[in-house]
């Protein structure tokens, strides 16, 4: 009994270094569950759907996860997401060339992210509140510039869009699916790899961890905490913009409620993936796992013909379980 307790305590200690383990484990369990319970779960079509939808939210999650590691929140990513699509849609409809529209949309998203950062670093108010404010404000801007209506691009097909989020012909041919696999998956993987490299391999990445871990100590050791925060807020905005453009490249239309509720899903995905709410710890791998887990939950429940409310309830439950288990593991010493 005593030996078993020792073993368990040691296991906890080891696990405490890998909070992603909880995400991996729950991912696996959920996967097995749906494999048994949901008809047609393990088909190319359903896997394709999970990856395709997960790619868009996943890119936003990566930004938010970096920001959470840095010790801050961004609740405005959903509104920012809608904003980028509207900028793209309205300029394209107005006849602007795509090579201007896309950079413009990305610029707007980055600036909105930077604005969040400026508000937070200048006023020292909690980012949770600051971005709750900008979430509403940016949404208001979206409604104003879109006049509260859909914006749909009906012009000539844009060849670039097939590179952004076209049919992933290779995979669809291989699996015999119609168009469930999309190119956005490649961009998602690319963004994840780059973000991981930035976090783990660069000075800036190291400073993100330091800033989130203990801002006063970091600044005492010569880290420019303000700059790190501003940069991370901007990156988060930029990633929301990138995800938005990828989605628009496929759907060619945007509505005023686009991205509504996304801000919480991405925080949930990060937390499930082991990113610490208080900052200082987290991995892109974990955030990606968290995103895919939630997407799988969505897909699995749809296949089981269970109403969407159950998704929300289950997602909520998983978040709480993930946080409890991560906290429990984190306490091990």
């Amino acid at each position, binding site marked *: 009994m005593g030996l078993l307790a020792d073993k368990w305590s040691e296991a906890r200690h080891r696990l405490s270094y890998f909070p992603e383990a909880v995400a991996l484990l729950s991912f696996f369990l959920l996967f097995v569950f749906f494999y048994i319970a949901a008809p047609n779960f393990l088909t190319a079509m359903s896997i394709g759907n999970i990856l395709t939808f997960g790619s868009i939210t996943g890119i936003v999650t990566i930004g938010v996860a970096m920001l959470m590691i840095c010790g801050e929140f961004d609740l405005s990513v959903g509104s920012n997401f809608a904003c980028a699509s509207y900028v793209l849609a309205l300029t394209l409809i107005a006849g602007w060339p795509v090579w201007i529209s896309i950079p413009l949309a990305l610029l707007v998203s980055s600036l909105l992210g930077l604005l969040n950062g400026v508000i937070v670093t200048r006023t020292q108010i909690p980012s949770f509140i600051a971005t709750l404010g900008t979430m509403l404000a940016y949404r208001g801007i979206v409604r104003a510039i879109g006049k509260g209506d859909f914006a749909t691009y009906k012009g000539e097909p844009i060849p670039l869009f097939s590179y952004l989020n076209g049919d992933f012909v290779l995979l669809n041919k291989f699996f015999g699916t119609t168009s469930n696999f999309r190119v956005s998956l490649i961009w998602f993987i690319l963004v994840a790899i780059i973000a991981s*490299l930035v976090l783990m*391999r*660069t*000075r800036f*990445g*190291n*400073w993100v*961890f*330091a800033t*989130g*871990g*203990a801002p*006063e*100590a*970091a600044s*005492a*050791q*010569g*880290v420019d905490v303000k700059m790190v925060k501003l940069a991370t807020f901007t990156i988060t905005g930029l990633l929301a913009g990138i995800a938005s453009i990828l989605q628009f490249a496929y759907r060619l239309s945007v509505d005023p409620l686009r991205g509504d509720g996304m801000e919480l899903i991405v925080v949930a995905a990060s937390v499930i993936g082991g990113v*610490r709410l208080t900052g*200082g*710890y987290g991995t892109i791998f974990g955030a990606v796992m968290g995103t895919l887990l939630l997407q799988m939950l969505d897909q699995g429940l749809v296949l089981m013909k269970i109403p969407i409310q159950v998704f929300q309830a289950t997602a909520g439950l998983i978040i709480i379980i993930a946080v409890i288990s991560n906290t429990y593991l984190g306490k091990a*010493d």
Partner: protein
Amino acid sequence: METAAPVLSLKKISKSFSGITVLHDVDIDLYPGEVHGVVGENGAGKSTLIKIMSGAYQPDHGTIHYQGQLLKNITPRWARENGINTIYQEIDLIPSLTAAENIALGNEPLGKGGSIDWAAVRSQARRILDDMGAHLPIDVAVGNLKVAHQQMVAIAKALSLNSQVLILDEPTAVFTSSEIELLFNIIRRLKAQGIAILYISHHLDEIFQIGDRVTVLRDGYLVRSGLIAEFDKPSLVRAMVGREIDFSLRNGHSLLGEEILRVKNLSRSPVVEDINFVLRRGEIVGVAGLVGAGRTEMARLLVGADPLQHGEIYLNGRRIRPTSPMVALGLGIGMLPESRKEEGLVLQRSMAENMAYSLVQKSSRAGVVPWKSIRREVASLLSKLEVRPANPNLQVTYMSGGNQQKVVLGKLLAAKCDVLILDEPTRGVDVGARLEIYKLMYEMKTEGKAILMISSDLPEILTQADRILVMAKGRIVAEVPAAEASEEKILAFALRLESEMV
């Protein structure tokens, strides 16, 4: 002792804060390869001195020479980058990063393509720690390391910045004796490397063991300074004490009544060990001791703010088991916490509301609050406390420290406590308010209440207390009646030098 030039030399340094001078013309020289101990009572000016050295404060007068150059307006950043490093008690590390990452932070070695060379990060950390003779895991988040190890990481970090002057502020406050020995070995190695060390400590033994020179501060004045060989413990203690005491503040005679509180074998290892004492009505018992002696921790046990490990508490002969300060207050034991802002007051509410909180607890009937009678009672308390401005609706946050303290006292009065535990009741309080607080304490005493007063201000203890308990390392090491107490005697007990002094 080589007669090299000092690496850091402060001359005629003065510093005052809002009109109160905390350093008067202090000189201090740090020589390469020497440990310079600085001792003095709480409030003698030690912290201000090191903050001036590390650039956190600018001196009002005086000059600082570093490596032969006159320095003006040094900033903490400049000091750090140019070899003056301070290891504070609250260690400046990022708990979620590993030892190696913390040491490299800000100066990460870069490899090809500008990416961090993690192998170099680890080998650098390993090399510095090995040079120090410190053996600790470098791949574990420092938050999971022992405090002693965290401190070694902080020292290693300083060395990675090519430290020439290392300032250690109470480095051994929470160390075990083997950890102290480990630190001393490291210090000896650093001395051999020619690093100058400023060593601040309450523990005179340590100064004698590791110090080459010692400087004594008292009330912001340099009292004595010299080679350690010129001192022995009694002479050092004599230099530390001797502050002016205004005995006209003496808090009247003792008015001993019957026993009200009895504490038996109170323990919470390792901070509080086997505390026994009795409190009578109409007396003020002072609790003296150094920072870290376990005084606040002992008080927190009495009111149930921390769980008891062992021991019994009797109130009026009846055993009580307070499980929280709220419960203790209900039983009639009130505590004025050390940090009133964090524990004692709701700053955004008015002072009347703050006082009413404790009244509400006492006088609510079936959950209904009798606001009318509460308002009347608050008004009478406010006039008694002489709070200025006497506006009961003023938000507490706009009041001075002294008046805030009076509001907290008012809360305790409102709760009609029989036993009051006052933790540093006059810290950060101006002289006028201080006298009024003494007056209030005296009134409470004459009303038959018992007061346990924790204070780091020895003159305050000597003038206000009827009886003095001295704590050291979690234990009560002496009980001294006020009539027989002197600053020197109390300090000797607190420093655990009693055998050598008497």
